[in-house]
């Protein structure tokens, strides 16, 4: 087989596996959220469909498909249909550059647990995820509904504001790592200090602050509690997706969870050593363990997301803006300056 064929087969299989896994993970993170929040709130959550409600996401998916698909008469039809797609595709795309694990071996073939290692991986993620806001803004506008419009406006303002501090907090990591390739960033975090503290970025002093700013902005980016204003159900009914039903709504819904997963995966990669973790046992186990560590870390972030949702009330629009621009943004800038000094001093 020529190299090209191997590459094509390799990439195709990897893409299918990753997208499949991603969609599965998205579906089951809805289950996880419902179940966890339920237990935080002293109730059971889904437990009728399958063992502990494990088939619930599938039932939900089927329900979404069979629901009536309504397009409001006054809506701009083309954009209305396009918007959920615009929201959904970038959410899936960004997972393509995230490394899930180290090299795995299938016979003599070395396989990287990553669809592709772009040398500008991080830039790619930011470019792609910021497209998601178009889906939200257009969807809200095209619905021709006042609640949707307000939700879309809030959402655009919020996502653009927090995109800045999100970007700035990542700059510190780039300064320390000196590369945009996610694979390299993970590799740089291997090893330990004093034999027991892993060399993860989170334990590097200025980067701790950038992790804080990153994660707070990330929660805001993904429109989650306490920053879930765009879909603040108590004020705006359902925000930008008020008019959406059936599979179109499902796409928005899935995009939100896919974004949560992406953001968690990125946090893991940038600050928590990616797939690094203790490796032991036979060769096949050593190949799979990194994947396990990676997923475990992502799960921890998802848990945190859901935990926040069970605990906190929601910000008000002006407070959210004030928090973003007056606190998070200056902090992120100050941190970039601090990191540059540290990097320059260390040589």
């Amino acid at each position: 087989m020529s190299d090209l064929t191997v590459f094509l087969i390799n990439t195709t299989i990897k893409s299918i596996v990753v997208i499949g896994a991603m969609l599965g993970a998205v579906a089951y993170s809805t289950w996880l959220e419902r179940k966890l929040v339920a237990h935080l709130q002293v109730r059971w959550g889904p437990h009728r469909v399958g063992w502990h409600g494990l088939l619930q996401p599938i039932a939900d998916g089927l329900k979404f498909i069979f629901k009536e698909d309504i397009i409001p008469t006054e809506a701009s039809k083309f954009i209305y249909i396009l918007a959920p797609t615009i929201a959904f595709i970038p959410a899936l795309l960004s997972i393509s550059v995230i490394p899930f694990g180290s090299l795995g071996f299938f016979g003599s073939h070395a396989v990287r647990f990553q669809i592709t290692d772009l040398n500008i991986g991080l830039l790619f993620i930011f470019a792609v995820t910021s497209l998601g806001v178009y889906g939200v803004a257009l969807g809200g506008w095209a619905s021709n509904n006042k609640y949707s419009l307000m939700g879309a406006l809030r959402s655009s303002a919020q996502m653009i504001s927090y995109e800045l501090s999100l970007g700035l907090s990542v700059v510190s990591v780039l300064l320390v790592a000196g590369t945009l390739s996610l694979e390299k960033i993970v590799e740089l975090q291997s090893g330990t200090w004093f034999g027991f503290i892993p060399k993860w970025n989170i334990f590097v002093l200025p980067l701790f602050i950038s992790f804080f700013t990153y994660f707070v902005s990330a929660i805001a980016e993904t429109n989650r509690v306490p920053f879930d204003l765009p879909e603040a159900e108590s004020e705006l009914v359902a925000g930008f997706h008020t008019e959406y039903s059936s599979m179109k709504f499902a796409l928005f819904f899935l995009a939100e969870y896919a974004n949560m997963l992406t953001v968690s995966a990125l946090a893991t990669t940038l600050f928590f050593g990616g797939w690094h973790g203790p490796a032991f046992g036979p060769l096949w186990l050593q190949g799979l363990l990194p994947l396990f560590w990676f997923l475990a870390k992502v799960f921890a972030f998802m848990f945190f997301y859901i935990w926040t949702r069970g605990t906190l009330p929601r910000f008000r629009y002006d407070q959210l803006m004030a928090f973003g621009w007056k606190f998070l943004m200056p902090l992120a800038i100050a941190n970039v300056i601090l990191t540059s000094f540290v990097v320059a001093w260390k040589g």
Partner: protein
Amino acid sequence: MESTRFNLESEQVESIAGKSETMVLSMGPQHPSTHGVLRVVLELDGETVVKARPDIGYLHTGMEKLAESKTYAQVLPITDRTDYLAPMSNNLGYIMAVEKLCGLQNEIPPRAQFLRVLIVELNRIASHLVWLGTHALDLGAMTVFLYCFREREQILNFFEMVCGGRLTTSYFRVGGLPNEVPKDFIPRVQKFIQEFPDRVNEYEGLLTKNPIWKGRTKGVAQISAEDAIGIGLSGPSLRASGVDYDIRKREPYCGYEKFDFQVPVRTEGDVYARYLCRVQELRESTRIVQQAIDGMPEGPIRADCPKYVLPDRNKMKTEMETLIHHYKIITEGIHPPVGEVYFAIENPKGELGYYLVSDGGPKPFRFHIRGPSFVNLQALAKMCEGRLVADVVAAIGSIDIVLGEVDR
């Protein structure tokens, strides 16, 4: 009604003609946080509310008129359905108004009074729990809602024990109570009351010192004491503005003068103050229930007043007159003397007054409810104007309205 609604719209449209930047948003009647079928017509400049007009009547069932065609006993179930979160309080207010009309105020046996206070205070807790839960839910704190409903469920179970109904209780009767409470009622309430302060700590732990919660409620939807009195606010919404007015203290009824409790008053007049007042009332009501249990007297639960109160069934088997009275009350209903009364109690939401006119017949000639939700709702426009959309939701939650009673 139709024309009023139309005018509301056209008025908005005229005002828009001046400044072309505003948008009219019809919030409700189907909206997750208008607590039922309240419609608020908002004129928005961006996210700022320029004008807010509550539009009510979507749940109007003509309860006051309906009462005129029912006997005094049959009116009781109607009162459940006004403020359906505090059915026991409504029952008490109505029953005490009828008792006043019949001149029975001083005839009520102490045990009946203590049980009434106990049950009504449990109802105050239940009503405040629904308020706290939905208010927190409106502001995004979802967990508090389910915690509150967990405790409310227990209180509804108590109601079920005493009268079989959970939401529409129709429990009290003219002259006392229809039946003695079950044997394990008091011990169960005692157990609940002992645990309850910890539960309140739990709610407060999630909210009171939470910076986001404070940010959402402090200084929001303020109303001064003058405005509050001018509008006619009552209950915790009034007391949060610094007016110490509680009918339980001012004009004690049903033996409230025998209980030792504080009336929480705050001066800020904002959503946070109203929140603190009500949460404190949860604790004070717990104290009242505890005192009612401790001081619960033995004795009859119905007044001995054959003209108005159903007699003891055992007596009916031996006394001819008692049997006749029973027959008369059951077939015709009671005939209060000609006259009119107004009687107000402190409902969980504020001053709940019943106005009754009797023409000497078995049915009220006129029945009117002075509902706290209806009056308190007037404050909404004043609270919201000039603030953000999100504050409208906070304001609606903080005045604690029930649309069943607003529209009646």
